[in-house]
């Protein structure tokens, strides 16, 4: 699953630490999501979408197979 989290974060001028603090997760989790190694829970996906004032589909792109 690809995502645009890194771009959205860069637009807001946030570091991984700052975003992690805002969403109450570890910095490693933000890094893992950005690098596509970890797919977040639905709850974290909603939190991200709300934080960046967008939709989950705009952040994450699911591809079959």
């Amino acid at each position, binding site marked *: 699953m690809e995502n645009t989290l890194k771009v959205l974060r860069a637009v807001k001028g946030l570091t991984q630490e700052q975003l992690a603090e805002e969403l109450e*997760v*570890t910095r490693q*989790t933000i890094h*893992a999501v950005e690098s596509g190694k970890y797919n*977040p*829970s639905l*709850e974290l996906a909603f939190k991200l979408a709300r934080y960046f004032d967008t939709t989950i589909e705009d952040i994450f792109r699911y591809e079959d197979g």
Partner: protein
Amino acid sequence: MFYVMSMDKETYNRIRAAVAALIAIIMAVSVLRNTWALAMGGVLLGMAVLYTAKKRVDEVLYDERTKIIREKAANATLGLVTVMLAVVGIGLIETSYWGYTANRELGYMMAFLANIILGVNAFFNWYYDNRLGG
């Protein structure tokens, strides 16, 4: 009054490693001196220090990803330890029939322990399956 300022995750990890090393040393000394009270005291003191330190960390230590990591590590440990106990246990029972009779008791104990672990795991699988709407 005992007061510790807030700390970051790295400091907490250093304290955790130091406490683990200290507990290991205390355990080793208590085994050598055959004093269970020292071991108990060391473990309790370590737990108290870790609890206090954890309360002072101002960063997030655990989240959904660390939870998944723990679950995966626990599953891998369960699989590995259970298989090892069963295989080594059966091996020891087998060797007891070749003349190493002292191995039989330990072999049965390990094999039974493997069964108990599997039984407890099956019970919790059933319990959480029901609890999570299965």
